[in-house]
């Protein structure tokens, strides 16, 4: 089996428009969640989100591109560009044929859908722009990334709600490991902060109206975010042969299904995914120093996740650190695992553990070291990233320091 490393990373999210700014914000424990600036926000009862601010699409894309790129595609392209540039790879010939792109998203071009439903239903128009379909389709981001960088190998989109990008990165990892691909551009992108996107979540009554406070006894729900995280995964021998800078090694991945409930999480399903990732990586659980939690800030997720970690790790659960950066960038749904993988890379490379901010009061059902409010310096050899989706679909990745 081939070994797999990360040689490039890119992002745009509420904390920053690139990796350096995002990691700096995480290290400072800065909150990117604020008042939503979207159309008809006055008709929403949830008025906050982790919105990408200071963003003007016209700076990055021309008129023809904007006509084809939904916001989630724009985010994916920007993040992919950063990652590929950092990797130094140029995709041509045999490498292009053996490299692809697998991205996660849940809503795809939801903003495009929202705007065009308005046009036909609310405004009574009988005509929509000719590019609505290629703009809204869930694979638009992956396809545009493949076109822009000549990635001609296995390429597709994964949609497993909040676990989409972890499932996507897991596919990229296993394809390189098995020898099917040499390099994969992978991660996820989401842009659900439009009226319909927020209104739908409101209906479920699991959203906080003031802040995302994972693991805190005072938590009262999740807060949506938006953005993208994209990485270059590459076969280790290929990366070493060309002298590439290696950010981390991807050593394991596991996915499980709760087969139980469409919204309520399961301790067993989560614990099996965590344990499975460690078995896949062939590591002892005591080597894990940090977990980037799914940590949504809902009552149900956080206590279930802590119980799953306690089950999977036994006594070692009290020795490891687990934090939820959703407290800062919000829940990017189909893109969340990708942005959160950055916190794992920061832990492994820089020895900085991103905090769980907004933490106010201990919850006996979340009695783990959640790195409350302030980042911490620590040497970590192995980090896990959890994602547990609605529908009971769980995906956990394991990374190692190089």
């Amino acid at each position, binding site marked *: 089996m081939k070994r797999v490393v990360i040689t490039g990373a890119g992002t745009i999210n509420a904390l920053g428009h690139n990796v350096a700014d995002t990691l700096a914000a995480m290290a400072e424990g800065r909150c990117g969640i604020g008042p939503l600036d979207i159309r008809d926000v006055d008709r929403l009862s949830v008025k906050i989100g982790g919105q990408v601010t200071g963003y003007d699409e016209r700076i990055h894309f021309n008129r023809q591109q904007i006509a084809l790129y939904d916001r989630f595609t724009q985010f994916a392209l920007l993040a992919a560009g950063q990652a590929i540039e950092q990797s130094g790879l140029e995709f041509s010939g045999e490498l292009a044929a053996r490299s692809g792109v697998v991205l996660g998203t849940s809503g795809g071009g939801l903003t495009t859908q929202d705007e065009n439903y308005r046009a036909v239903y609310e405004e009574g128009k009988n005509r929509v722009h000719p590019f609505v379909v290629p703009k809204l389709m869930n694979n638009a981001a992956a396809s545009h990334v493949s076109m822009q960088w000549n990635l001609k190998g296995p390429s597709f989109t994964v949609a497993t709600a909040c676990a989409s990008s972890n499932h996507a990165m897991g596919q990229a990892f296993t394809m390189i490991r098995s020898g099917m691909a040499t390099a994969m551009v992978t991660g996820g992108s989401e842009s659900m902060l439009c009226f319909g996107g927020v209104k739908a979540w409101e*209906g*479920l*009554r*699991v*959203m*906080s*109206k003031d802040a995302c406070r994972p693991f805190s006894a005072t*938590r*009262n*729900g999740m807060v949506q975010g938006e953005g993208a995280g994209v990485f270059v995964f590459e076969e280790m021998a290929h990366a070493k042969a060309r002298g590439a800078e290696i950010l981390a090694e991807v050593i394991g991945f596991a996915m499980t299904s709760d087969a139980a409930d*469409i*919204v*309520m999480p399961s301790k067993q399903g989560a614990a099996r995914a965590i344990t499975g990732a460690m078995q896949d990586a062939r590591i002892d659980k005591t080597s894990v120093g940090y977990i980037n939690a799914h940590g949504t800030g*809902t*009552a*149900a997720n956080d206590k279930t996740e802590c119980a799953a970690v306690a089950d999977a790790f036994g006594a070692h659960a009290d020795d490891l650190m687990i934090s939820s950066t959703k407290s800062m960038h919000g829940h990017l749904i189909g893109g969340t695992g990708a942005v959160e993988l950055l916190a794992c890379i920061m832990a492994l490379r820089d020895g900085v553990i991103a905090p769980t901010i907004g933490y106010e009061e201990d919850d006996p059902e979340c009695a783990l070291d959640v790195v409350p409010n302030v980042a911490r310096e620590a040497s970590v050899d192995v980090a896990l990233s959890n994602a547990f989706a609605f529908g009971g679909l769980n995906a956990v990745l394991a990374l190692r320091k190089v």
Partner: protein
Amino acid sequence: MSNVQQKVIEIIAEQAVLEVEDVSLDQTLEDLGIDSLGLVESIFSIEEAFDISVPFNANEPEKSVFDISSVAAIVRAVEGLVKEQTT
């Protein structure tokens, strides 16, 4: 039986897949086999039926002014909200 009580019991009975006669005021949602998803759906039906807005966050049900401890409590809460929001 008030109109509000009648309608609330109808909504709860439908959610629980029971006949209206089988729902009594002293029962809890748990007694009726209504889980968290069923509760959220019931609240939506109540909002639609009475054209009211019910303040309820599933993460902190105990903090809600909307008392869901029994069928009777829900009826009282809806009566209060109808009075408050339609006057």
